[in-house]
């Protein structure tokens, strides 16, 4: 019985741990700084605490055991497990800092990325989508980022001293041949793509990946949305036209149909034009967007669009002083892009094909021109992770591009087939360095040439907030078709980029500064000593050209983005400094090109009036004077006055019988500043034509109505 009592007592005692003493100590970082808010717990017990601001902790009523296991963790530090004996009363614990959450480092040299999927990008797709533009235009939004120069009279992205043709827009991996509506001399055209098509944007102002090519300066990588969130119908009525959308969503499939008709004539009643139009810009078009996902997580995307546009206006005919001539354009564009993404074991397959055809019929004064281009592109990319974080990407693409130009009695044609292969790897060296190294090979059937372009970039993460990046690469591009029409003995044009970047990002504030140097080689240069013509309406140069042109661009881009300092206000400031000169095309001597400007400033502000659904936006742009041609002065030594623009936008939305209604107003150059884009001089330099914006002030207003059967809009129940 006594023995039984002992067992009884033993079990009783064993199930009632004895609390006798307390432990205390301090948690510090390797730099001996106290760690505040670190969790300290004793394994296999319910005993736990956290450290105070001096890193100190204490736990009372510690169970009596020979050894205890302490688990210590804190945000931003690696976990620590420490064995202690209860005799030890004062415990010092040193935690090592986690190296800047290296799960994903965005190599920031030369690149602005906006993505919801990657947590560490400094921009979100929403930030891009809300840059004021009417109609919403992906290219206008990107043009507010540093590295771009504004060229009022031309569409296109002019990146770091590059011409518009040196930037390629790439949708889901495939180059878009005609991202903008067809050119009208002196009048910049809109882009064809709305910001709302894309879930991710990556704008590279230099040193871009080996996965892409055919762009001397820059690529704009656009990733389209996946399966739509919900079914909806939308009608947009504005002073510029009408458009509608029907989206139907099934389980893993969605189909959207968009149609639009526009005519700017009514808006010209308010927006006084500097040009005389006999047909104001008008057009119609539509697109279908189909998305379907399979059970294995693969996704198939199809986008097909058709656009028709027309305009007839009087433009300066600079070959005859003071004369204006009628310019009319009739453009048709078809674009189809389809991609398929699927995971096979460790490999991810991205396959895509695109087709586009653009047909323009142009009459200018007495001449008639038919311009046509077609592009057929196929692309296959395989990628896989190696280990946890390293990545290997290999791929091939074939581009078949055809150009035709019938200029009165003359006719020109070009069919280029460009085959490219590339391999790239992304890897980490320790915890602080991420690198991307790639190689791209391109062969042209027209040039009978092959080039090999190495690309490299590296990021060094100093800590969670500070990062340095550097980039280097060789970039090639075919000469413009206007040169290849008459001369097939040309070779690839070439640029080499060197980039250094520093980025600080903390507390919803980002500061970025990037310096670059870009060296141009083998640019096409005309060898005829003809007069320089600033106005290049469908000029087909003679056969006398070679690749003896060259040039450079260097500069500094600064970006400050602040979503924090002022409540409900997001703003960014982008500043670009550019120093560039080149000898190319029909330039007689090396000069700063007409599309370059030394200083560009963009301030983008977005404000949501608290407790309302009113959003206001103000954008300010400054572009310093650009070179223009005056035949009696040294070549391109004159500068236009600077261009200033203040854009206002506002929208207000509310519900009307389950339908979401949004009214919007967009006003370009609200101050009505009399900007001057350029001057066209007569041959003797005595007379000149002043190139101004098509209108000094433009105002557009409209209403966007989303019809809903149920109170669900974009997956949100109201």
């Amino acid at each position, binding site marked *: 019985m006594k023995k039984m009592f002992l067992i009884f007592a033993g079990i009783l005692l064993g199930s009632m741990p004895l609390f006798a003493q307390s432990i205390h100590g301090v948690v510090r970082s390797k730099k001996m700084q106290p760690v505040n808010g670190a969790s300290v717990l004793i394994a296999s017990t319910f005993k736990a605490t956290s450290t105070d601001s001096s890193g100190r902790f204490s736990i009372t009523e510690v169970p009596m055991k020979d050894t205890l296991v302490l688990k210590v963790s804190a945000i931003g530090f690696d976990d620590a497990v420490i064995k202690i004996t209860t005799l030890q009363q004062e415990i010092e614990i040193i935690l090592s800092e986690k190296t800047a959450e290296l799960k994903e480092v965005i190599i920031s040299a030369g690149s602005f990325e906006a993505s919801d999927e990657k947590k560490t990008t400094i921009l979100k797709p929403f930030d891009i989508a809300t840059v004021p533009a009417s109609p919403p235009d992906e290219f206008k939004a990107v043009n507010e980022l540093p590295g771009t120069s504004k060229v009022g009279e031309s569409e296109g992205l002019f990146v770091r001293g590059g011409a518009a043709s040196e930037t390629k827009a790439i949708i889901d991996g495939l180059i878009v041949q005609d991202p903008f509506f067809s050119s009208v001399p002196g009048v910049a055209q809109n882009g064809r793509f709305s910001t709302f098509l894309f879930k991710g944007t990556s704008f590279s102002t230099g040193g871009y990946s080996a996965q892409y090519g055919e762009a001397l300066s820059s690529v704009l990588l656009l990733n389209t949305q996946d399966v739509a969130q919900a079914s909806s119908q939308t009608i947009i009525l504005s002073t510029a036209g009408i458009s509608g959308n029907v989206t139907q969503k099934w389980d893993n499939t969605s189909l959207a149909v968009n149609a639009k008709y526009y005519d700017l004539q009514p808006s010209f009643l308010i927006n006084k034009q500097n040009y005389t139009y006999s047909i104001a810009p008008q057009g119609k078009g539509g697109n279908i967007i189909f998305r379907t996902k399979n059970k294995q997580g693969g996704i198939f995307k199809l986008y097909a669009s058709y656009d028709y546009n027309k305009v007839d206006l009087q433009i300066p005919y600079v070959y005859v002083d003071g004369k204006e001539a009628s310019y009319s354009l009739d453009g048709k564009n078809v674009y189809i892009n389809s991609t398929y993404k699927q995971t096979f074991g460790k490999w991810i397959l991205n396959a895509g094909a695109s087709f586009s055809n653009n047909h323009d019929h142009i009459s200018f004064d007495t001449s008639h021109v038919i311009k046509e281009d077609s592009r057929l592109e196929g692309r296959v990319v395989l990628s896989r992770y190696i280990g946890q974080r390293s990545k290997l990407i290999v791929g091939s693409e074939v581009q078949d591009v055809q150009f035709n130009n019938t200029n009165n009695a003359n006719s020109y044609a070009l069919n280029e087939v460009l085959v490219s292969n590339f391999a790239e790897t992304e890897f980490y060296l320790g915890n602080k360095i991420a690198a991307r190294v790639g190689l791209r090979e391109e062969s042209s059937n027209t040039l009978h040439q092959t080039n090999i372009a190495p690309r490299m970039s590296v990021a060094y993460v100093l800590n969670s907030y500070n990062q340095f990046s550097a980039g280097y690469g060789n970039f090639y591009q075919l000469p413009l078709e206007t040169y290849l029409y008459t001369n097939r003995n040309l070779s690839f044009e070439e640029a080499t980029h060197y980039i250094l970047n520093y980025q600080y990002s*903390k507390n919803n504030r980002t500061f970025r500064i990037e310096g670059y140097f870009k060296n141009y080689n083998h640019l096409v240069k005309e060898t005829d000593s003809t007069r320089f013509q600033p106005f290049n309406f469908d000029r087909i140069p003679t056969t006398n050209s070679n690749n003896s042109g060259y040039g450079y661009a260097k500069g500094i881009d600064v970006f400050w983005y602040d979503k924090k300092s002022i409540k409900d206000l997001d703003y960014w400031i982008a500043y670009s400094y550019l120093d560039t000169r080149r000898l190319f095309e029909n330039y007689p001597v090396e000069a700063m090109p007409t599309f370059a400007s030394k200083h560009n400033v963009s301030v983008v502000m977005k404000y949501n009036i608290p407790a309302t659904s009113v959003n206001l936006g103000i954008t300010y742009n400054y572009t310093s004077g650009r070179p223009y041609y005056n035949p009696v002065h040294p070549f391109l030594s004159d500068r236009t006055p600077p261009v200033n623009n203040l854009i206002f936008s506002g929208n207000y*939305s509310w519900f009307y019988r389950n339908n979401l209604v949004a009214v919007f107003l967009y006003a370009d150059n609200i101050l009505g500043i009399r900007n001057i884009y350029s001057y066209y001089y007569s041959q003797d330099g005595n007379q000149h034509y002043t190139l101004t914006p098509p209108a000094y002030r433009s105002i557009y207003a409209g209403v966007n109505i989303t019809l809903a059967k149920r109170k669900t809009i974009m997956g949100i129940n109201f």
Partner: protein
Amino acid sequence: MKTTLMLFAMLLIFSFTKAQDDYKKVMLENIQALDTAADTQSLNKLVSVFTAVYDVKKDWHPLYYECLGYIKLSRAYQNTEQKKAAIQKAADLLDGLPVTNDEVLVLRALYALNYLAIDRSEWQTYLPMLNNSLKKAQDINPDNPRSYYLQGLLKYNMPASMRGGHEEGIKLFQQSMEKFESYQTTDDLAPRWGKKEVEKYLSK
């Protein structure tokens, strides 16, 4: 010998219930503390305790409260980076919680709401998450008072033009209060939060 076995059996049951009591006692104590804690110091201590408890007892309750603690921490911190780090911890913990539990779905909604408080630019992801989680929670348990509270909170802070406003919010708070008053559960450790806040809004 028979008595010895009996004694053993009793002792085993005793020590087992003792451990259970300890678990419950610690949990109840800390759940209560979490209800009133607002400063980072005490919240950090509480999440640490729930971590310790979950280490020993793999039950959804301690994980739930640890997650709730991190959500409250994301509010308590002043610095955005710390706010983000805390809400990220909550997101990691949410992944380990059962998705068929209405309280977990309400917690997910609370997470989304607090994420938006830190970074509203990601509303396209988090507003649908907030709405869908509450809708699912109500499908599973239409009597969960906290789901109406959070819906009310969203409405209350939305502009009137967007079908929100104080009146709309109050309606949902009233509905929530009715549910709070008739709320019954056999689970001693079930979440209790929300009633005080609803009372505060209703007395405004």
